[in-house]
């Protein structure tokens, strides 16, 4: 147990030295580390939001809202399909639960109905390779003329997954435009998106930029009926303005243009009254449509609708043929800027709701770290003193081993790029406990063997041999617990499990190699014949 070949010794010491080097950058500020020469390791530990402050926003796709809107467009699409020549007579077309249904009058046309509706089932590409294609909707054509198109479980799930992917892309584009923060945007589960912005002070701006659907549509205003009148034409909708109190408008339901027709948007100032406005440019197809509509509807108002709110409803003074225009709507400089960013980055495919939000101010995180450091230094000093009081020089060896152990944990966390959070620090503390325990187990065993009558060196040898078996069993048990928690847990549980699992591994490493090596070196140096423990 006390004999090490030269190569083993070199290997052990190399691991320790590499560990120390990898952990080293954490002692310095980011700026200092960056000024170091390129061959020095520079990677620093990623601190969790609870330690460094920042915003944690968990969004969920609003399924209900999405399904309602999607089914409404499906109703429109079905109507269009039925109106194609030759027309198919139907009644009772409308949304029913998670689908759309209608009744066909002439049963002999059912075959034709099926043919026309088949493309509307909307085949969705599956992301998994070799997966079977899924249709968004199931189509059932009853022999009694009742036709239903409803979401299938698989179809809806697949659609939500696509929405999450698209949303992540859009959010990424929006945040890129912001330029200042570097949040991480991740899929979480099937229908959630996690946005984490370390170091961000005020999450409100991030929230407006990330969470806003930013669905922009242009509609003609129907001025022939009053919005408060009980009846209105089919194909029109009532939309409130974003004023307080809101003013209702009657709009033609089918939009003239949508945000997709925009190629650019910029925040500028109105040339006449110097108010912040958002100027936009349309694609060539969009410009053509807009030109035609504005030519035909001079002196009629049209409305610009953003997320189901009319933000402005100017009257068309003259045909707009150049394909560009501006949106005014009581903007501040920042809100005009934000809207321009949103329009450039595109709209979210569905509404996102914040289901969990945590914002930690940088001050609080810094306080926690400062207090934690003081506590760690005092705790370490006291534990070291106690170990030396109990074991003398061997106590010093144990202290060195435990400190190296903790440094190794931090270096592995640094190398892996894992995040250190407050529960993670708890994982380190418990490791200090078990690491001290490993040393205590060894020393107590040596003591026991010596008292049983072995020579000093034989007792040390036997002590290690027997204690290491115990240490192995105890640590493998905790390692299993830590690994299960890592795979099943999320958030703080995972944060705890990472450092705990790493800690158990480093504890075994130090107990089996480093402590043993130190004790062996001590034995070779002092050649003890007596053990005072």
């Amino acid at each position, binding site marked *: 147990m006390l004999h090490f070949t030269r190569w083993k010794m070199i290997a052990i010491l190399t691991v320790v030295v590499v560990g120390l080097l990898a952990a080293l950058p954490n002692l310095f500020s980011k700026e200092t580390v960056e000024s170091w020469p390129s061959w020095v390791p520079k990677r620093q530990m990623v601190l969790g939001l609870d330690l460094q402050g920042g915003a944690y926003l968990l969004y969920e796709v609003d399924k209900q809202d999405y399904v309602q809107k999607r089914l409404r467009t499906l109703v429109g699409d079905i109507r269009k399909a039925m109106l194609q020549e030759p027309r198919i007579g139907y009644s009772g077309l409308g949304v029913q639960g998670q689908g759309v249904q209608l009744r066909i009058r002439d049963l002999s046309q059912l075959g034709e109905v099926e043919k026309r509706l088949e493309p509307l089932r909307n085949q969705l590409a599956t992301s998994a390779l070799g997966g079977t294609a899924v249709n968004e909707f199931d189509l059932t054509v009853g022999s009694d003329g009742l036709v239903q198109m409803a979401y299938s479980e698989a179809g809806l799930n697949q659609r939500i997954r696509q929405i999450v992917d698209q949303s992540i892309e859009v959010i990424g584009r929006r945040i890129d435009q912001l330029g200042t923060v570097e949040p991480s945007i991740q899929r979480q589960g099937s229908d959630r998106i996690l946005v984490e912005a370390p170091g961000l002070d005020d999450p409100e701006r991030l929230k407006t930029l990330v969470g806003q659907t930013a669905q922009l549509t242009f509609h003609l205003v129907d001025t022939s009926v009053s919005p408060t009148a009980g009846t209105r034409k089919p194909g029109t909708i009532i939309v409130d303005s974003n004023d307080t109190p809101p003013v209702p408008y009657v709009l033609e339901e089918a939009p003239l243009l949508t945000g997709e027709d925009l190629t650019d948007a910029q925040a500028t100032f109105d040339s006449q009254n110097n108010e912040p406005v958002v100027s936009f440019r349309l694609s060539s197809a969009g410009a053509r449509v807009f030109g035609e509509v504005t030519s035909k509807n001079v002196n009629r108002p049209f409305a610009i609708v953003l997320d189901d709110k009319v933000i402005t409803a100017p009257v068309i003074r003259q045909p707009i043929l150049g394909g560009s225009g501006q949106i005014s709507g009581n903007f501040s400089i920042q809100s005009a800027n934000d809207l321009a960013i949103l329009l450039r980055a595109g709209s979210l495919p569905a509404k996102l709701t914040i289901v969990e939000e945590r*914002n930690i101010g940088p001050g609080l995180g810094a306080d926690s770290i400062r207090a934690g450091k003081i506590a760690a230094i005092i*705790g370490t000093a006291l534990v070291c003193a106690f170990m030396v009081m109990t074991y003398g020089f061997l106590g010093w060896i144990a202290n060195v081993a435990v400190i190296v152990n903790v440094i190794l944990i931090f270096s592995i966390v640094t190398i892996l790029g894992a995040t250190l959070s407050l529960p993670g620090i708890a994982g380190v503390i418990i490791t200090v406990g078990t690491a001290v325990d490993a040393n205590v187990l060894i020393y107590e065993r040596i003591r026991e063997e010596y008292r049983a009558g072995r020579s000093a060196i034989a007792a040390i040898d036997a002590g290690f041999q027997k204690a290491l078996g115990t240490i192995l069993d105890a640590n493998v048990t905790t390692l299993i617990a830590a690994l299960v928690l890592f795979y099943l847990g999320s958030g703080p549980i995972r944060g705890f499990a990472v450092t705990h699992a790493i800690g158990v591994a480093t504890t075994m490493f130090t107990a089996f190699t480093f402590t043993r090596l130190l004790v062996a070196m001590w034995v070779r140096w002092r050649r003890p014949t007596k053990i005072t423990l």
Partner: protein
Amino acid sequence: MAYLRIVPDNTKIPFMRMRKWTFPLAAFLSIMSVILFFTVGPNYGIDFLGGTVIEIQTKDAKPDLGKLRSTLNGLGLGDVQVQTIGADNSVLIRMGQQDGGEEAQQAAIGKIRAALADQAEFRRTEIVGPRVSGELAYNGGLAMLVTFAAIAIYVWFRFEWQFAAGSIISAANVVVMTFGFYVVTQHEFNLTSLAAILTTIGYSLNDTVVVYDRIRETLRKYKKIPLGDLIDRAINDMLGRTVITTVTTLIALLSLYIFGGDVIQAFTLAMIFGVIAAIFSSICVAAPILIYFGLRQDQMTKKEDVEAAGKA
């Protein structure tokens, strides 16, 4: 030079004779914890209940809580609790779940921000929606159960089934008592508390396996001594180690408790309790269970023979 020895050599505490008292005590504490858990219940934080917590630092050195309370309760957000935390001008604002789900929660936080913007700095806001809070509790519980199952299988293979059952019951005992600790103290139970409980599970398993390892060794060495005496001998032989390890762990935790700042204070207190519960449980629950479950000394010998045969 003589070093510090807390436990004198040749200590012979008759732990297994004391089990007539200690085992029922452990059982009593566990059952009380369960009863308290279901009757009084822990003081769940927003992580499990949903709701909003805001920590602010007021610009006045001495915040006027009464004024804050009336401002906030005037916003029409239901019951808003206001309390100071720590020594300085930090104020904690808590608010239950809003009717109308996640969007109402967002609207509520906006109102509070607007109302307090000029008199305070927002140090922390946490909003947990109703859907997430349920999942957090479910996932935490699931992770714990699977952990127990995995550990049981490992210990069963390395030792005997009695040891597997003992280590799980002992760890469960620690978990239940730590829950009881949270109920009795009414410290807020949140995700960090869950991390504290997981930590004590880790500590408890580690300690139990160390004790079991020694019992197994003693069992193999002395085949004629009654099981109770054997276990006593094993525990007493280990007592020096158990005390030294406990003392060092407690030193580390206590310094965290005293100097570590108020964010982790409740958390370290629970761990201190958990570590003590773990030590108690290893000796007073895990060890006697081997007797109650009828561990036979020849079981160990047989396994040893098999192992020896395997190596030959």
